[in-house]
Each structure stands twice: as C-alpha cells, then as structure tokens.
C-alpha cells in the first residue's frame, strides 16, 4: 500500500509511551480529529 494525498491513511496499532504510562495507540481511534503523524529517526538525537 502506498500513501497518497486524498487517500485513507494506513491504519496501524503501536505501543506507546504517554505521560508516564505505556499504552497501545490505534490510529482508527482518532477518526473525527485532525492528526499530525511525525516520523523521526531516533530518540537521543536533535530535532
């Protein structure tokens, strides 16, 4: 599947750290909201 403007964002579930707790995040749970998804190379680096 390729991502394209105007097409559905691929759904996923991922383990996450969020304000002191570990949880599972599902992109599908964010329907109804604007979402910005930021990928980045690694923790402990700049930016």
């Amino acid at each position, binding site marked *: *599947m*390729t*991502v*394209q*403007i*105007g*097409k*559905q*964002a*691929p*759904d*996923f579930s*991922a*383990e*996450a*750290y*969020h*304000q002191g707790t*570990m*949880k599972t*995040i599902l*992109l*599908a749970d*964010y*329907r*109804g*909201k*604007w*979402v*910005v*998804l*930021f*990928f*980045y*190379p*690694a*923790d*402990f680096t*700049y*930016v």
Partner: protein
Amino acid sequence: MAAVAVKYPAFLEIGAEVLTISVDSAATHRDWHERELSRMVPGGARYPMLSDPGGKIGTQYGVYDPEKRVDLRGRFIIDPEGVIQAIEILGIPVGRDVSELLRELRAFQQHRKTGELIPCGWQPGKPTLPEEEAAKKIAGKIWEVWKPKNAF
C-alpha cells in the same frame, strides 16, 4: 521533536492531535523523555510517543530507510475522515519547521470550514480565494483580486 513539544499547546488550540513515532521501543521513549526531553521542554512531551520496531509502520508510509534502519523525518496531516491531506519527508540532516506545519493545518481547516481556496503564503486574516465554482469565473483575472505580496 523538542520543537513540537514546545508548540504542542498551539496544536491543542486548533484541535489537532500529535503522534510521534520512531523505531525506538516505548521503554526507550520513556528514558529519553525522562532524561532529556522533559529537561528541554517544561512539562515534556504531552502527546503519545509511538514505537515502530523494524520500521513496519514507516514502511507502510514510505518513510522507512532499510539501510539506516530508521524512519526518515516524514510528517503527515490526516483529516477527521482519516484521509491524508499533506505529506513532507526530509532527508536526515535537516529538521522541520513547526510554524509551517501549523500554517498548513490552519489552511486546511479554513478550507474545510468555508470552502474557500487558500493561496500560497496564507496566514489567518489574509485574503483567500472564493470556493471552487466561483473561482472558475475569475480564472485569468485572479491578478485583479490577489497580489503576490500577499504571499509574504
């Protein structure tokens, strides 16, 4: 990601959720958050920091670099229907501009609310162009209603 953490209130203000994601484990995110991010930014990162082991999700989004084994700096604006509205992918040495991202989010929200078309360099308060049907009527005459200086 510290710049995003600093600007997080601006995202909340316009009703946008932030998710960050790298190949690091959730435990590494916790360590980084405790040891560094929370010292750089008061309150730290208040959004979920997602783990993408092996770059599986990055691969789905076309940002995983299998040689370096990391997700590149890809940034996706996803609308309330789950549809991708904007994509930016940067090479590893260069960081992003959070202000430009917020501008794009506000512009997409403005279009969604009013149907207006959003010219380049638009900021809230600056002129927009009429919605698509009306815009067709002024094709070739946009120079009369919109000046390039509006873009800066």
